């Protein structure tokens, strides 16, 4: 995805209370930051959830908004991991229109990117790509030579490496 403003990847650790997502979303949108991706899942302790949020907007000022998010009573911490050495993964499902003749080439590209074919019909296939978001970008670019019918991406999930906490 091409975006003029850099996308920052934040990890937010929250108490699992009603309204917490709305409060966080409001804090960003009020200041003109757009949420590009969002993944929410329960933490090991079910009382808490972890959100991985991709936001786009001016880098200058983002630190202040992060402090504003951190200030929310239901937020335990909000950390910008954009420049950290962290494990960042994403999954994409891409439905491509391919005829029987085109199928071979499409599968070759899929294989190159380590994709699985999770659905196959006479006229289309669905590729499942898991990995580095940039790699999925590259895959999408390659596969665009065929007609992409539909595409969905989970958005990034992230964990800090080794002794670091997310």
């Amino acid at each position, binding site marked *: 995805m091409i975006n003029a403003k850099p996308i920052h990847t934040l990890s937010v650790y929250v108490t699992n209370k009603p309204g917490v997502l709305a409060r966080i979303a409001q804090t960003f949108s009020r200041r003109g930051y757009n949420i590009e991706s969002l993944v929410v899942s329960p933490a090991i302790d079910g009382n808490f959830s972890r959100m991985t949020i991709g936001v786009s907007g001016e880098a200058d000022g983002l630190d202040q908004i992060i402090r504003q998010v951190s*200030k929310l009573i239901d937020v335990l911490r909000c950390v910008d991991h954009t420049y950290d050495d962290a494990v960042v993964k994403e999954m994409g499902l891409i439905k491509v229109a391919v005829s029987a003749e085109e199928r071979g080439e499409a599968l070759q590209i899929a294989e190159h990117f380590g994709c699985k074919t999770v659905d196959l019909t006479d006229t289309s296939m669905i590729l499942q790509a898991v990995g580095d978001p940039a790699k999925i970008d590259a895959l999408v670019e390659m596969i665009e030579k065929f007609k992409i019918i539909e595409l969905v991406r989970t958005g990034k999930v992230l964990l800090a490496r080794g002794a670091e906490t997310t």
Partner: protein
Amino acid sequence: MEKTVMDGGQALIKCLEAEGVEYIFGYSGGSVIPIFDAMITAPSNIKFVLVRHEQGAAHMADGYARATGKPAVTLVTSGPGATNVITGIMTAHMDSVPMVILTGQSVSWMIGKDAFQEADIFGITMPVVKHSYLLKSPNDIPRTVREAFHIATTGRPGPVLIDIPKDVSAGSFTADLHAEMDIPGYKLHSGKIDLAKVKEIAEAISKSQRPVILAGHGVLISGGHKELRALAEKLNAPVTTTLLGKGAFPETHKLSLGWLGMHGTAYANKAMCECDLLLNIGSRFDDRIIGDPKFFCKEATVIHVDIDPAEIGKMIRPQIHCIADAKLFIEELSKHVGKLNTGEWLKTLDGWKQKYPLKFKRQGNLKMQHVIDEFYKLSNGKAVVVTDVGQHQMWAAQFYKTDAPNNFLSSGGAGTMGFGVPAAIGAQFGRPKDTVIAFCGDGGFQMTEFELATAALHKLPIKFVVLNNHYLGMVRQWQELFYDDRTCGVDLEGNPDFVKLADAYGIKGFNLRRPGDVKRIVKAALAYNKGPCLINCEVEKTDNVFPMIPAGKRIEAMIIEAPKAGSKKLEKPTGST
């Protein structure tokens, strides 16, 4: 506390009592009947004040809290009752006032189905609360109430809302009235001061020759006014406050520069342009004080001390900052500093004080300033002053000097017209022994004037001063100065006879028209103690407030005196509103 058979409403009243709540300001309705019933069936020391409009209840709780430092409670019904308090919540939120708002809600199983008088008040108020709750079970009441008061009153205070479905207040309560809080995400400052930071700040201060201390509302909230005075005297450094910081440092003190900002003193504003160090303690660098942020204090070392980390760098990037409670910080800093060589600087400032004093004319038509000044003198500067919003607010702040904390109550961040009357009522409930004066414009007064009934009923000896210029004066001033005097939508023709209006509520009224009568009538109003009184002051209709820094312009663009007729046209302001 032991387990007893009770319902949610009764448990709620018990919990509020345990929090030390003295007053509930509110209005009844279907969804809160179980709570009102509990006020009878679960006897407590809490007094209920029935208002005339829910906005009034919110501002009363706000005025009570500002005047006492203690949180008050607002209780209203669901739907329109709840939406009527939003302005009051926003007003308190902008000015960091502790408040707990209880709203009734439809029964749980009808929420989201457009039940009668259902409003998603939890959702609607999210951006203007410090925190909020939607109760699910009666047994959650003790924990929620404890958390709400804790959150509202600690750190940077603010309003907390609890939405209470009717089945929760009516349902049976089977838990312990004493519950532990569970708010692992609430990051309260530990109270430990970062010594290295304090030393760094002390070091910067020691090098300064033209320092200014800027004291905000945070100093008052932390109760650090005495410590601030000691610090300023030790350093021999001048102090200016924000509008909400009035009272954090005695304005009659020789080191005081009064308050700064759009209509603050010329000398405080000039000091911002000339200082070499600005020590901001507990102010959020509101746009009303910094003008154009690109040019604010560009030559100075800026130090920002705040309890709220999110305020650091929001408007102005400081060279040094410290996250701390204002009082604890000042105490610590005082140990590391000594007297500064500020003789020259203080002389310069005194020169500006001489050259650009706050002034007005006692001749000609009656001036608002004249009335305010007389109230200041005859009440010995000791009253609790509450204002509404507009020109009169600025003049009240200019001419009623504040020497003690929590004595000047005004809607600063929100600028909420209609604040004055109910906030004064709340303040008088909280400070029954003190004189409370409400300075209101004729516009704002009419926004919440119906609460005169509440004041009359409780025989509160408030002085309601209606500074009646028959205009929405502050807006008219902008239209005159920046829009070639094209006045539109500001003429308050149709104003009632305010003295007759007071009379209708059984309230004593005074009419004041002539400068020669000011002393006599102000004296009579201050002496009248049988209940509220109202003083309708027919003042100059087209006076303007100066100094003035046009919104968003740099402080250097301050207009100190009224521009002469035919002088150069002023550029339109570029700042927020």
